Every structure is written in structure tokens, then in C-alpha cells.
């Protein structure tokens, strides 16, 4: 029988799970507060999904257009999120992002500069002013490397290639994490007073995604199993521009920066179709003609923004509609053209990774030809429900920040708000964990039984004589999610997906990975499948519950936003007997001053007729 005393044990005050932007920023804050801090990362340090972020991080510094300020950023975020965002989170984010960006510079980040020598800012979808601090189109790499190079000197313990399996509790409280080293397959128990989840989303449940293998919803699933509430999971963002060809790179991201820097979308008739998809909400702030959009590109501040820079949900739906109407590109996307809009030298300087990526993977020279692009599953707006100021979940001692937390983005995230989300709420989660740990009377400890059960669940997969191939099971899951829970959804398809997921859960009970536990990707895949299945089921059930179309959640059977549904969040949690419970819960109303800013006409906000009393 398994002897728990023989399992490696590491003690920390706080364990951060995930070493992307949010996890590293949280760990730096914990360490600055004097907490013994451990970071678990599934990959090597510096390889997390954050490196794939391209366009930039949104912060209303006003370096390029002095009319920008936190209120405009807040208003853009709420409107982009279709008013489902947690008011306080959108406020904190807009207010604190500039300081967090400047802090990165203090830690060695080298952003592109304005002529005056300040941090340059670029245009992006849904942001009224040029707002994204950036480094060409590799901003995520700059963010992660700056945090990494700063963090390694802060006394943080980095546990690389170490995967968290389950959260351990002492009564209601967090007491530890059960994990395993990928290299050896050995288990490790991290005893800790608090856990900060920074595990990102679960895009790997879909076949066409910009997400890497790591994005299996581990944090969402672990939090759910530990009893935490999840929120807004029906909102899965399809980024409008992923590569569509060659097949092997289908889904890989093409930054919104291409459109921010002047790129336009065309169908196979050469039409700039986005002018046909401008919704009422954005019409007053969007160019009505090609001529006006072109003036905007030339820097005319009286011209309105081109419709290619509408929010991601609107652009993704427009592309899907064009393809469906038979006006798509040869490989089932549309054309994204910057070659005819900007000189080759400009494109190579501002979009070097895109140039490189298309040249090497698709043999397309984007300075000469248009790119073929189509929607790709990119981001989870929903995740673990947290307190806005402390990022604490409904389980004491369990915190979440970054993509795996819900609230900031509402029904749709604006591009550039993710990187700023990581650093703003990563820091706040660190502060929250410090506050929690300081208030603990005694150190919570997990029981041996929990540890033994967790290890048994993981090793069964290796010990079985035969069973389901986890890779093939993953393929089936992708198939279910793409057919049933895609960009456009409806009741019967969602119900069918739920039924299929139930069947897949049964198959998953008998997964078998051949080989030993040492660096065994088949075993890792099987363990990730457990997280993916919980996450996929939560997304599907939430999508079935929300009977309206809002932001990234589009229901064919319930078109349009409903005035009733904006008052509710969909909450998912584990029921008393282990079943998944879905609840339609009233959303707290925002403070009147913030509500007024979010709904104000931009002219009134800027003239000080609204919001002048808020600081």
C-alpha cells in the first residue's frame, strides 16, 4: 500500500499554478510580501502561452493620443463586453494598467517608442484611441521575458515541468496541491496556505484553436472539483483571424495588429465586406464609407475608425457569414490584406512575426499578397468566479487570475485587454493571497487519504492492461465541441453535445497510456483529458442555459441581446452528489457613476458632462 511519507513534500506559503504573465506577476507580488512562493509550470519557464500574444497590452497612458484616459478605456471594455463585465474589475483594470506597464519598463521591458521617446501605443479593435503598448508583434514574449528575468532574482522557487493534478483541502480551506514531475513521473505534494490559479483557458477542446497543448482548462477543472464556482463559461472567444492554410497550422493566430496597422478584410469578390456588418451600437463611432476609413488611416482625427476594428465577436461572425454565403477564400476563410495598404518596409518592421510566420509556414509574402484567415478558438472570457479586489474564489485560500478567472471581459474581450489583465490582476491576486495568509490562525494540512486517492486516480491510467487511447478520445472531444459548441449555437445541437460529452466521460474512465510514467506524453494527455472534459461540459451546459445572443455567445434560436439576460450570470458548480449544477444568478448592479460612464455618449464623456465627478 502506498506510503504517503515517502512522497516528496515541499512547503510554501503560496503556490502559483501557471507561469505565464499572470502567474509570474502574482508570484513576484507574493515574494515581495515576504511569502515563500512556489510556481508550478507544465512547460519550461518562459514558454507559457503568454509568449504567443502578439498585439500589445492596453493601458490608457495617452502617449499617442492625449484624449485617452481610464474612463474611456473602462467604457470601451464594458461596451466590448456587452455590459456583462464585473463593474469593479473593469474599473480596477482601466485605472491600474498604466502603472503596471510602466513597472514592466522598470524591470527591463523595451517597448516600441513614440517620437518623443515615450512608450508607443497602437490601435486595436474596440479601443477608441491608440492604446496598446507593444513591441512589434511579439509583445507577449517581451512581457514574459521581463517578468521571468525579474522574477528569477526574487527568491521564488520555480518548479518547471511540474503538472498540478488536484487541489488538496483541510475542511473548506486550501491546504495543498498534488502534482507530478513530467521528467520522472514522480508525485510531489506541495503543502501551502494558499493557491493562486493562473492556468489560462481550455481551447484545446476545439480542433481549430490558437491555443497550445497546455490549454486544457486545468485550473478551471481543479477549482470546480475543489468546490469553487465558475462563471460566464458560455463566452468563448473566436478570434476572427487565425491562419486557415496549410491545414497543419490551421488556427494559429494572426494578430489583430494587422488590422490595427491598416489591414482590411475582403471576400472573394474583392469587396471590403465589413461595412455591411456594422451593428447599431457601434455605428456612431465607425466609419460609414471606405473614403472615411481611409482618412482615419492617414491620421485624420475627425474620421471614425474602420469597421475592420470592430470587436472580435462582430468580426468573427461577419467572416463566418461571408464564408457561408459562398464568398470565402479557396481554403474556407477570407482575405486579410495589408500588402496594398502599407509599404513592405513598414510591414516588416511592425509585423515581423507575421511576415516570418506566413513566409515560413504558408509560403506567402504578406508584403505582396493577402493572407487567408478565418475564426479560431482563442480565449475564455469565463472561468473561476473571484472577488474583484482580492481575486479570491468561493473556496477560502483559492485565488485565480488571468484567463482562468472570470469577470473582467464580460461577454467578449477586447484585444490587448488580456496582457493588461494578467499584470493588473496578477498583482492583486498576490496582494489578496498575502492578506489571506496573514489572517490564518493555523496552517491547514491535507489528509493522507486525499493524497492517496489522487495518486490512485492518476496511476490507474498506466496500470490498466488495455483501454481507450487518450489521443483518439481527444479527437472525439474536439469533434463534439466544434460541431455542437462553435461560433453559432442552438438548443438541439448543444443538447446533443451534452449527450456526447456524457458518453466521452464514460470512455475516459478506462483510458490507458502505454509505457512508464517517465516523460510519457500519452499519460500526460490522458490526465489533461480529465480537465478538458470538466471544462467542456461546463462551457456546453452554460451555453445551453443562456437563451440570448451576446458577445461571443451566439444562439441561432435566440437572436439578439435580451434586456432580461444582461441582468444574469450563468454560474456552474459541483453539486452535493457530484453532478454539475448550472444556475442563472442575478448579476450585481454597478455603481451609478460607473454605469453612467459606460453608457455615456463619447462626446458627453469627453466634454465632462458625464463622469466628471469620478476620479
Amino acid at each position, binding site marked *: 500500500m502506498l506510503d504517503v511519507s515517502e512522497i516528496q513534500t515541499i512547503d510554501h506559503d503560496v503556490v502559483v499554478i501557471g507561469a505565464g504573465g499572470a502567474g509570474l506577476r502574482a508570484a513576484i507580488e507574493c515574494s515581495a510580501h515576504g511569502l515563500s512562493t512556489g510556481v508550478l509550470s507544465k512547460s*519550461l519557464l518562459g*514558454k507559457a502561452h503568454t509568449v504567443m500574444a502578439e498585439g500589445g497590452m492596453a493601458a490608457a497612458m495617452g502617449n499617442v493620443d492625449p484624449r485617452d484616459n481610464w474612463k474611456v478605456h473602462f467604457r470601451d471594455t464594458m461596451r466590448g463586453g456587452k455590459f456583462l463585465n464585473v463593474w469593479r474589475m473593469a474599473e480596477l483594470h482601466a485605472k491600474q494598467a498604466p502603472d503596471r506597464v510602466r513597472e514592466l*519598463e522598470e524591470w527591463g521591458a*523595451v517597448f516600441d*517608442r513614440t517620437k518623443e521617446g515615450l512608450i508607443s501605443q497602437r490601435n486595436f479593435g474596440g479601443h477608441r484611441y491608440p492604446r496598446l503598448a507593444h513591441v512589434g508583434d511579439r509583445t507577449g514574449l517581451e512581457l514574459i521575458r521581463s517578468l521571468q*528575468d525579474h522574477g528569477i*532574482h526574487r527568491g521564488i522557487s520555480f518548479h518547471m515541468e511540474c503538472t498540478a493534478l488536484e487541489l488538496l483541502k483541510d475542511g473548506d480551506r486550501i491546504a495543498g496541491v498534488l502534482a507530478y514531475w513530467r521528467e520522472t513521473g514522480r508525485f510531489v505534494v506541495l503543502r501551502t496556505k494558499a493557491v493562486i490559479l493562473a492556468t489560462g483557458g481550455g481551447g484545446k477542446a476545439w480542433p481549430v484553436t490558437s491555443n497550445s497543448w497546455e490549454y486544457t482548462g486545468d485550473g478551471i477543472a481543479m477549482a470546480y472539483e475543489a468546490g469553487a464556482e465558475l462563471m460566464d463559461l458560455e463566452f468563448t472567444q473566436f478570434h476572427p483571424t487565425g491562419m486557415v492554410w496549410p491545414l497543419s*497550422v490551421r488556427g494559429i493566430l494572426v494578430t489583430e495588429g494587422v488590422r490595427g496597422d491598416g489591414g482590411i478584410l475582403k471576400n472573394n469578390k474583392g469587396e471590403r465586406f465589413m461595412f455591411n456588418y456594422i451593428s447599431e451600437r457601434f455605428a456612431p463611432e465607425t466609419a460609414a464609407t471606405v473614403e472615411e476609413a481611409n482618412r482615419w488611416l492617414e491620421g485624420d482625427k475627425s474620421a471614425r475608425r474602420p469597421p475592420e476594428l470592430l470587436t472580435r465577436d462582430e468580426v468573427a461572425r461577419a467572416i463566418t457569414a461571408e464564408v457561408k454565403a459562398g464568398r470565402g477564400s479557396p481554403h474556407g476563410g477570407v482575405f486579410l490584406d495589408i500588402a496594398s495598404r502599407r509599404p513592405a518596409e513598414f510591414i516588416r518592421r511592425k509585423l515581423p512575426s507575421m511576415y516570418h510566420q506566413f513566409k515560413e509556414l504558408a509560403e506567402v509574402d504578406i508584403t505582396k499578397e493577402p493572407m487567408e484567415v478565418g475564426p479560431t478558438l482563442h480565449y475564455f472570457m469565463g472561468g473561476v468566479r473571484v472577488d474583484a479586489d482580492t481575486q479570491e474564489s468561493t473556496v477560502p485560500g483559492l485565488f485565480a487570475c488571468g484567463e482562468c478567472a472570470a469577470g473582467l471581459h464580460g461577454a467578449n474581450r477586447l484585444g490587448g485587454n488580456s496582457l493588461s489583465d494578467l499584470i493588473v490582476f496578477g498583482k492583486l491576486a498576490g496582494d489578496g493571497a498575502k492578506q489571506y495568509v496573514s489572517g490564518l490562525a493555523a496552517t491547514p494540512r491535507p489528509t493522507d487519504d486525499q493524497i492517496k486517492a489522487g495518486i490512485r486516480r492518476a496511476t490507474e491510467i498506466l496500470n490498466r492492461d488495455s483501454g481507450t487511447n487518450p489521443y*483518439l478520445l481527444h479527437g472525439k472531444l474536439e469533434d463534439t465541441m466544434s460541431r455542437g459548441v462553435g461560433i453559432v449555437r442552438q438548443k438541439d445541437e448543444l443538447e446533443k453535445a451534452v449527450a456526447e460529452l456524457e458518453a466521452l466521460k464514460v470512455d475516459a474512465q478506462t483510458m490507458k497510456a502505454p509505457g512508464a510514467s517517465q516523460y510519457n*506524453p500519452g499519460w500526460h494527455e490522458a490526465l489533461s483529458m480529465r480537465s478538458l472534459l470538466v471544462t467542456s461540459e461546463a462551457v456546453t451546459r452554460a451555453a445551453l442555459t443562456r437563451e440570448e445572443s451576446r458577445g461571443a455567445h451566439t444562439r441561432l434560436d435566440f437572436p439578439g441581446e435580451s434586456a432580461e439576460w444582461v441582468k444574469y450570470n450563468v454560474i456552474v458548480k459541483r453539486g452535493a452528489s457530484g453532478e454539475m449544477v448550472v444556475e442563472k444568478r442575478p448579476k450585481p448592479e454597478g455603481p451609478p457613476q460607473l454605469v453612467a460612464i459606460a453608457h455615456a455618449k463619447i462626446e458627453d464623456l469627453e466634454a465632462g458632462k458625464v463622469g466628471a465627478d469620478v476620479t
Partner: protein
Amino acid sequence: MAKRSFKVWRGDAKGGEFKQFEVEVDSGMVVLDVLHRIQAHDANDLALRWNCKAGKCGSCSMEINGKPRLACMTRMNVFTDEETITCQPLKTFPVIKDLVTDVSWNYKQNKRIRPFKPRPREADGTHRMYQEDVDRVQEFRKCIECFLCQDVCHVLRDRDSKDAFVGPRFMIRLATLEMHPLDTDDRIPEIRKEYGSGLCNITRCCTEVCPEHIGITDNGIIPLKERVVDRFYDPIAIIGRKLFGIRRRTKTLAEEGAGGSSGSGSGGGAGSAAGGKAKEEGET
């Protein structure tokens, strides 16, 4: 679709051998796709690292037909139809399993390097830097830490002088800090003594394999070597320091010649001139 032959090294620290796989390959595939297909169908436990699949994270480094490359950026159509494609782990680092090596040595080198130390902010709370002054540093910061340069570096690979030289990746990290307009620290003495700048003999193999096309040798290592030479081997500067205690951060010939312009091409002429000077350092 066509069947292609793959030879993949399988084994661990104790040893191993190449295993042959015949795989269906579709048009547009890269080597990583084929390895994933092998993993899904023929060898579930084949160990390899990958993340972004777009050349941005530097995880899938391996030796493909003898050359250090990223598997995700190596298209299958660069090989002839009959060619057998051989995949093996990076040779410079110890094997963990199959195509996965223990690269932790690199993380230890990074930790040895003293961190960024900025000058105080300006009165308005900002740092002012001009684009032309950060172009070179931004070139270095494109590094995705794939460690292909470390793999191909003769000093690390053949002579196994890992204790004496930090390797091209960390020379570039040091160059980033030394050329950062805001940094106030001085790492030139360690660059010579502890990080082993003199051991690089400028064969430029690292530059050739860099998937980010960073001018590692000409734009990074040679200017660092020059700074070392100026500090420790320039008789006038030495007398000046002895008499007046002057220790200024000198701009090197290569940097003055390059005039702050970006791109790996610009360092070419200055680089070869500097090569002689840097070689002098190598021989001391």
C-alpha cells in the same frame, strides 16, 4: 498524402537507438506535425517538447537531419520525397527521454547574470528612450530561448567547456543589458572573467542557426568582446584608470560605425574589423 520515412531517436540517459516509422504526410505539414502523428498512432509515449507551433516559444528544438532546428518551423517540403528524415535530441545537453533534453544548465546561467538596474525615472515619472537607441536591444530581445545557438556552439558542444563560457544565448542576454539605454550596472569585468567572452572564436555557427535571425556574433558578442578589450587591453585607458580612476562605459568601434542602425546586416563590415581586435582577446 504520401508515406514518408522517419528515423526517430528513442531512449534515455542510459542509451537508445533510432526507430524507423513510416508515416502518412499531408501537404503543408511540418516535422512537428509528423512527430505528433507518430505519437498519436504508433508511439503514445514518444517524448518531445512543443508549445506554440509557430516559432514563438522555442520549445521544439531538436536536430533534424543533423541540423539544429525548430520542428514546428521545418516544413516537410524542404526534403526530397525519398529522403529519410532523422530526428534526434540536442547533442549538447543530457538526454532525459527520446527528443527531450535537460536544458536546466541554461536557466542556471541566466540566474548568474546580475539583473537590470535602471536609472531613476524622469521628473514626470517616465523613462525616455528613442527608437533608434533601442533597435539593437529589441533585436536581441527577439530571442525565444530555443537554445539552438547553445547546441551548436563549439565551446559548449565539442569542448564541453560549460563551466567557462555561458554560451551565445547568454552573451546576447548580457549584450541586452549592457546596451540597454536605462541600465546603470557594469558587467564588463564578469563578461571577461566569469562568462568567458574570450572563449568564443567567432565562427558564427550560432548566428546561422538562430531562428529569429539575431546577429548574435556580429551585433552582440563582438561588441561585448570589444568592450572587454577596451577596458582591459587598451594601454591608454588602463593608464587613465590608474591615474584618474576613470571607469566609463565606452562605446565600441562597431557601435559607432553602425550608428545605431538596426538589422543584422549593418554589423558586417564593423564586425570583421572588430574580429581582429576580438581575436586578440581570445588569444590572451
